[in-house]
């Protein structure tokens, strides 16, 4: 099943390495070109669900300026899921690309 966009962005962000909550919010915004701003409620609902599904796992915590930061990391299962999603999206994008190329009058690289 296709991943929802916030989930995809979180997994993609964690593919680079472990991150804490706020770093994920910032990275998701950057990955989406500023289009997606994850709310804190949305982020932690997704993190909780992904932990339960075993796609990510907590990976240590630290206190910075009196604030608790828990780090999350991608699991093997999560990496596989992200890879499947990338393959699916790539395949879909390829088909779209082919059909658009065949469309007369549209210059598509």
């Amino acid at each position, binding site marked *: 099943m296709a991943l929802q966009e916030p989930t995809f962005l979180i997994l993609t962000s964690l593919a680079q390495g472990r991150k*804490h*909550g*706020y770093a994920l*919010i910032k990275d998701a915004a950057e990955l989406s070109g500023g289009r997606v701003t994850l*709310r*804190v*409620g*949305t*982020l*932690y*609902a997704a993190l*909780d669900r992904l932990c339960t599904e075993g796609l990510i796992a907590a990976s240590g*915590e630290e206190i*910075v300026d009196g*604030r*608790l*930061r*828990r780090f999350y990391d991608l699991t093997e299962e999560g990496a596989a899921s992200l890879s499947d999603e990338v393959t699916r999206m790539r395949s879909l994008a390829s088909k779209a690309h082919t059909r658009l190329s065949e469309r007369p009058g549209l210059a598509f690289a």
Partner: protein
Amino acid sequence: MSIAVRTAIRLHPLAWRKRYADEVLGTLQDVADDHHGGRIPLTESVPLGIRGLWLRARSSISFWAGLVVVGLLIGCAATVDVEYLDGSLIDVLLRVNTGLGYSLPVLAAAAGWAGARARRAQIVGARERLRQLGAETWPLVAFTAVGYIIAVVVVVVRGGLMWMPVASLFIVLAQWAMILVAFAIGQLLGAVLPRVLVIFAAPAATWFFAGLLFTSQTAWNIAPQGFYRGIAFVFDVEPYTRVYLIAGIVIAASVLVVTVRPFWAKLLPVAVLAVVCSLVSVQPAPPPYQVAAVERSRAELVCSSIEPVVCLWPEQEAAFGPSLRAQMAEAYAVAGTLGLPVDSPGPGSVARYAMTGLPHPDDNWENASELGLGTVGFGPDDLLPLYAYTMTSCCWQEPTVGDGEYSAVSYAASILLGVPPERALPAVVDPYTGQRNFEPSGVPDRKAAQTLVHDWLTDGVNGVRPPD
């Protein structure tokens, strides 16, 4: 930390809070520092709170049971008969009883399920257990309250509402007491039984109580008279009420004790057994005042042999029979002189006025259209105005005039028959308080009374019932 953020986090389930609360707070502060000048905006805290509410709700059977309760309340309110709704608030509230009656077993089952889950969680500490109990049941309470309000609105929209000075909110207290009893039953059973059994046992036990809500007559009668009379009426009419109340108190106390001291749960079967035994052992008995009214035979009545025939109970006959008969004969003559539509005293005509309440043949209750319950305790001064009242009511043909004028005609007729004005109002004695309740009359003096009676005779002569 702002109240909004604190509330948003508190709305989440306990397990979530233990795991994520500090971390989420830190992340919220990071977001606030970088984008909102250090203040956590509502655009973050409100969605967080809503999500917490949803997380808490969907993990609780109370949430789903609450939806069922709302459906029952609204469904019944939308279909209950409002044809005879009199427009008073109390009547509107009574129409909600049907939905509540069906909801109680659902409430009990959900409370039982929650109680069983709380027991299995083996939480340490009374405060924590109470907190758990509250967390498990609040969606149910909230949904019930919302459903109750919507049901009232639905009934009002369907049947209308007007202000009448008879509404008593006692019925609301009674309804919510029943809801709490349902909760208590569920929690109690949940504390000792497995969940699989609780969801059957709790509704079955609660259905026993729910029957009270369907006897809307009880609530209707207690409504105008206030709290004391309400309690007295319920005790009097419903023979099981004392047992219900005792059982309710025992159950509520047991739930509290078991919640605070789980060890005592071992004694709960004894308490349950005691309640069941008391429920089984108590036999329904006719309420005290009904015994006097219902079980007397008409054959006991002592009737005079001369016109007008007046029938009295033996004790009334002994106390004031002769003087009353003389008074009635005089009034009868006055009525004839004035042209009031009474039976003419004379050979062959028999006018019977039984001066007491008599059971109605259909339902064994007193026939209120004759002389009502209160006459049992009346003396001679009360009987003459009631005679006038009966006289006018016996000859009435609906719907010539309204109740107010009917009452006024009775009053006026009483005055013309020689009854002192202060005693001329039709009255009934409240069987519980002994208080005399008089029907209001708009007749200021004797002249007005004569005019009223004259007009009534002129307009209503065609409605006069022929002598029996």
